[in-house]
């Protein structure tokens, strides 16, 4: 970049904020579900280990929520600061889900505050668990509302545009646009999967380091089982998303698959390198794969990228993002499957082999990377549009100077926040060892060390 271009820097800054925020948003949506599961099992089985699990997860969770809140505030304000022209037009059509999202988050924040400080305050244990319901609903509903906004950017509906003015608005049609069902369910399921794997990775790490306490084994079983179920759901929805794209955003699917000519019986391309004139080298090709992904039948006709004017095609590197995301997604499902297979075979006294523990440890960060890849694929795949068919990114950005300086400032902010949050979390759990905590709570007799 030799010349200052506010569009470029606005994109970079938005990408940066979203990429950072999505880590905490994912945890914020998924971990409450896991906490609720653990506390519920604790009450049902009367096993104090599960209750302690819920308690310890909550303790770390609030710290990530704090970062999620502040980065969410950042993206909320940056939408107006960096994309004023977009918000001026689109704000008319999508203000409703944005507004509702704040309500959902408000409820979540209130009940999280209550939940955190009332562990021993109610006579009946289920009362405390009930507080989790508004938290889970609130966090998932926020994800729902925000994702409808993103869905709207991909398939804008529910209005007509006359001379740059939005007319004949139907707010609900805008919210429940064609992209909403697959996008929302994919976001929710993948958040649940990722959160479950992150918690699984912690338990697996402890077991790998040599602890063989029942507490960690129960944690591992609960989290990996949940993660496996969620990962299957994510994959199934991912398949539906492919069919959605083929119908409503064929250029995104075509770019992801390097599919240039419209044809039937289209193969699925894995990997590869693009040569001159877009011929693909070194690829793995699965016959009929793309037709099946797009339409569910081997002879389905898939629209090729050449049908679109050149300045309306997404960048072709999203092919790799798409491939990697799918490959990682499969890894996540496979790891869960292997774990369940083994624990079924060795009923009662299962000792999870080291390689599988290591695979589960890897699944935690890998799941988060998959989320990032998925979002980069979704967002870059929409280029050059900010509002598909109506407004291009280049026409939506601020004209303000100094976006580059702000980018630098925010880089610094996220770096500092990121480093501190890791330090604080690791210190939190190291200083308050689970075995010591069990002894102090009277769950465990003294003497044993992990």
């Amino acid at each position: 970049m030799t010349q200052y271009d506010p569009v470029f820097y606005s994109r970079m800054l938005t990408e940066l904020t979203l990429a950072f925020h999505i880590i905490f948003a994912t945890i914020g949506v998924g971990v409450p579900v896991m906490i609720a599961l653990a506390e519920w099992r604790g009450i049902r089985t009367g096993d104090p280990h599960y209750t302690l699990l819920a308690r310890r997860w909550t303790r770390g969770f609030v710290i990530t929520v704090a970062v999620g809140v502040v980065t969410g505030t950042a993206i909320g304000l940056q939408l107006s600061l960096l994309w004023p022209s977009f918000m001026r037009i689109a704000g008319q059509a999508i203000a409703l889900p944005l507004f509702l999202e704040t309500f959902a988050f408000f409820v979540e924040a209130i009940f999280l505050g209550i939940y955190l400080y009332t562990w021993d305050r109610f006579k009946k244990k289920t009362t405390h668990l009930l507080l989790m319901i508004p938290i889970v609903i609130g966090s998932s509903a926020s994800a729902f509302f925000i994702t409808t906004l993103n869905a709207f950017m991909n398939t804008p509906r529910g209005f007509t545009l006359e001379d740059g003015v939005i007319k004949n608005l139907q707010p609900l049609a805008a919210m429940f646009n064609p992209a909403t069902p697959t996008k929302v369910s994919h976001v929710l399921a993948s958040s649940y999967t990722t959160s479950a794997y992150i918690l699984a990775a912690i338990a697996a790490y402890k077991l790998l380091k040599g602890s063989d306490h029942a507490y960690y084994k129960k944690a591992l079983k609960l989290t990996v089982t949940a993660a496996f179920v969620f990962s299957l759901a994510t994959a199934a929805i991912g398949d539906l998303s492919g069919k959605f794209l083929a119908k409503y955003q064929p250029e995104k699917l075509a770019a992801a698959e390097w599919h240039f000519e419209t044809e039937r019986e289209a193969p699925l391309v894995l990997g590869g390198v693009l040569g001159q004139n877009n011929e693909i080298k070194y690829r793995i090709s699965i016959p009929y794969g793309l037709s099946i992904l797009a339409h569910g039948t081997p002879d389905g006709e898939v629209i090729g990228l050449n049908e679109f004017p050149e300045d309306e095609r997404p960048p072709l590197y999203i092919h790799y993002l798409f491939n990697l995301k799918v490959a990682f997604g499969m890894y996540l499902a496979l790891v869960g499957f292997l774990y369940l297979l083994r624990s079924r075979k060795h009923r009662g006294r299962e000792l999870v082999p080291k390689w599988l523990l290591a695979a589960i440890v890897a699944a935690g960060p890998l799941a988060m990377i998959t989320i990032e890849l998925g979002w980069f694929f979704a967002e870059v795949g929409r280029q050059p549009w900010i509002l598909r068919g109506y407004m291009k990114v280049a026409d939506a950005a601020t004209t303000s100077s100094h976006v580059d300086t702000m980018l630098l400032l925010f880089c610094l902010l996220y770096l500092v926040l990121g480093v501190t949050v890791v330090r604080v979390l690791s210190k939190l759990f190291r200083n308050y060892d689970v075995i010591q905590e069990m002894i102090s709570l009277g769950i465990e007799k003294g003497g044993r060390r992990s």
Partner: protein
Amino acid sequence: MTYELLGIMVLWTFLYGYLIVASVDFGAGFFSYYSVLTGQKNKIHKIIQRYLSPVWEVTNVFLIFFVVGIVGFFPETAYYYGTALLIPGSVAIILLAIRGSYYAFSTYGSKENRGYMLLYGATGLLIPASLSTVLTISEGGYIEERNSQVLFLWNRLLASPYSWSVVLLAVVSVLYISAMFLTYYAARAKDETALEVVRGYALFWSAPTILSSFLVFLGIRTQNPQHFLGMLELYWMFAASFLCFLVAVYCVWKRRRYGTAFLFVMLQFAFAFYGYGAAHLPYVLYPYINIYEGFTNETMAGALIAAFIAGLFVLIPSLWLLMRLFLFDANYVQGTGAPKKG
């Protein structure tokens, strides 16, 4: 009442809510740090923590509500303020981000750290200062549209005595509101030592608050004469505000009815804030955006208002529960209910 007026009233109410809740929070952060510096930490730190810990996230949401709401109801604001406020807006975001996360780090994290406390205390004053400039800008004269390019006139804002008087008012009000609230809270907690300290703060900051309010009131006369005339028409609101101030300070001075005193603080700011806002109408940004021309389409306005009413049905009971458990529960406030986090 028109949709336009209803919309701006809803938004103004959220901003008022933020003003009160955030002031308590910001001021508490400052006092908390100040008490560490002056060695009085053990006297007041505990009640501040007790109150703040469960409610801090709620504070941020009020602000987001206002921002999202104003862009929803008045999409033109996104365009003008959005373009003009890139730098001050970004700075405010960064300060809010530092404040929120470092509060969580020091409260929920393992150990308290003096550096975190400093950040927490300093941002408590810097954030209201930076946010208050938006009100100054709305008076007009700092944003200009030339050749369909929106420009923010930095130098003029920094050189304006009016702008600084608003900053001053914002900072001292934060300290005053917060100290008044903590006085009430300490009294409820029956914590005599803390009460003495925070009551002193409350009385100390009352005079600067009312003086800087007068300063701002007069400053508007030269800044935006039209707004000033509007305010004179609503003189009774400002008179009522002053009366409420007197009642509040009198109660605290006489060491009685701290709850009533805080109620009157809220009324004092309500009268002044709504009076200021009402006189500013119909402009949201003088002279570019007024509520009638910059309004969203009618369908969306209806949907937003419906959503708002539905939302209140969920929100009010939840807030009531929160307050009942942590603000009005004598056991919790006094610390006999053994609140264990996590």
